[in-house]
């Protein structure tokens, strides 16, 4: 458990410039993925005449609403490659961005509650090891040693039959991650424009040449969409469709407590994931609401269900209080894997479909999406995550294979 203080808030993070009339590239969406993309465009590809357009305030969407879990223990090779690359970037980014956003590698445990879970977990540990991802299988006694507040009695509805454990996984301060990227982007000359909502696109034939916004039309050679739950809305403006469904996903925090929870515990089967933030609040997330929604709020019974699971697994949480709940809009795909690549519109690129797990992917999304935008062709890490996979059938089916349902 880290007893570190929160990072000192820097005096200055970014300018708030007026949009220029034209840019070499425009990123739509000023969340983690948009900012990371702009950062890698500037740093790796020398594209500094670019802008990030954010309809609200910087990093106020899912970047502000997630449970900050970072891990790479995915089953399939394609996923393990991109998420493990992200994890390696997380390990060096605080130094590279010159901003300690408290990436705490306290480990992530994924509980197994049924024989099916146990088999899936052991298989995934094997797959992870073959892909160079650190992974261990823990029996219930080892689970208890690592996280003493977990109830491993076998008289509960879904007893703990073991867990997978990724020691290098952890959590980070999400707002500070966004600010770290934003500050570096600004230093490199990127214009971050808040309160700038995209209302349409200007096309020359099938080629995008500009972005219409509430602050006027901006000419641009390239457009990268990083709008998560609103990706479909932007795609419709541009004249194409995405295989995305937007759902509300909720999370909550308790009041502050003494450090009691040393790691991150996730349970696919009873569907709850819990960590304790640096300040002391218990942070919990659940599954998505079943229906499509853009309302940034979900139904309370989902939270109730999640709390019931949490209290059974962690009896000492019974007297904690829910301090605050909130919802974000997550962009889910049918194979629970992201879409990063080209679109049917020339010079328009899309990064979406990260669903409930986009935060952990932030650095790799930025790196690969920047490569795709700058060169017009995918990086080897995001090549399998192209939109075309829904046509070719080469899906990357991480449903139930990714340690936690998306």
């Amino acid at each position: 458990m880290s007893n570190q203080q929160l990072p000192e808030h820097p005096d200055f993070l970014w300018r708030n410039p007026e949009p220029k009339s034209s840019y070499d590239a425009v990123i739509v969406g000023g969340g983690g993925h948009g900012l990371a993309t702009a950062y890698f465009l500037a740093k790796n590809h020398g594209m500094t005449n670019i802008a990030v357009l954010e309809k609200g305030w910087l990093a106020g969407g899912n970047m502000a609403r997630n449970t900050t879990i970072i891990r790479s223990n995915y089953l399939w090779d394609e996923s393990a490659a991109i998420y493990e690359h992200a994890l390696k970037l997380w390990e060096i980014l605080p130094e590279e961005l010159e901003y300690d956003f408290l990436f705490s590698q306290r480990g992530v445990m994924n509980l197994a509650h049924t024989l099916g879970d146990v088999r899936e977990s052991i298989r995934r540990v094997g797959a992870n090891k073959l892909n160079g991802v650190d992974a261990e299988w823990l029996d219930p006694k080892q689970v208890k040693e690592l996280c003493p507040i977990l109830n491993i009695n076998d008289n509960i509805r879904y007893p703990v039959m073991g867990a997978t454990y990724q020691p290098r996984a952890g959590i980070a301060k999400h707002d500070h991650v966004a600010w770290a990227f934003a500050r570096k982007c600004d230093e490199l000359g990127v214009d971050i424009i808040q309160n700038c909502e995209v209302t349409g696109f200007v096309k020359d034939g099938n080629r995008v040449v500009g972005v219409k916004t509430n602050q006027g039309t901006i000419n641009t050679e390239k457009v990268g969409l990083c709008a998560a739950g609103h990706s479909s809305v932007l795609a419709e403006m541009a004249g194409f469709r995405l295989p995305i469904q937007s759902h509300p996903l909720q999370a909550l925090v308790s009041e502050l407590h003494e450090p009691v929870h040393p790691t991150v515990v996730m349970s696919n089967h009873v569907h709850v994931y819990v960590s304790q933030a640096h300040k002391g609040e218990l942070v919990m997330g659940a599954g998505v609401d079943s229906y499509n929604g853009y309302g940034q709020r979900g139904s309370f019974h989902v939270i109730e269900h999640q709390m019931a699971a949490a209290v059974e697994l962690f009896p000492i949480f019974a007297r904690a209080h829910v301090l605050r709940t909130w919802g974000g809009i997550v962009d889910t795909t049918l194979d629970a894997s992201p879409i990063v690549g080209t679109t049917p519109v020339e010079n328009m690129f899309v990064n979406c479909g990260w669903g409930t797990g986009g935060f952990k992917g932030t650095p790799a999304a930025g790196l690969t999406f920047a490569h795709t935008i700058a060169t017009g062709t995918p990086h080897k890490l995001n090549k399998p995550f192209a939109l075309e996979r829904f046509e070719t059938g080469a899906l990357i089916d991480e449903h139930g294979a990714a340690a936690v349902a998306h």
Partner: protein
Amino acid sequence: MLLIPCPNCGSRDETEFHYGGQAHVAYPENPTELNDREWAEFLFYRDNTKGAFAERWLHSTGCRQWFNMLRDTVTYDIQAVYAMGTPRPATTGPAASEPGTASTAADSTTTGNAAPSTSSSSTTAPEGATK
């Protein structure tokens, strides 16, 4: 928690229902003639409308019947419920979404002769239908 007006059972909690996604997506009329692109559209592409959205719900712990519902995906207000196989009622909400390209035909389950129930008082959700 949505309070969903089941056309058969009346208003019940959302937890009694299962969500069925976009309504009016018909099975391709000539499946053997579809190319990969068209199959992808039918299998994986659904409208993701921000605004009034026609969707299917199943009252799984009640009458166990499917029905269609028009719901605003931003406010979550329920604007109408109507029978499977009947066309989407007109609303004053945001513009309807583009129909899918895999099939623009009417609902393939249009076999009954039930009239669209737009004029019936039962189609309008009671006040406070969502929360």
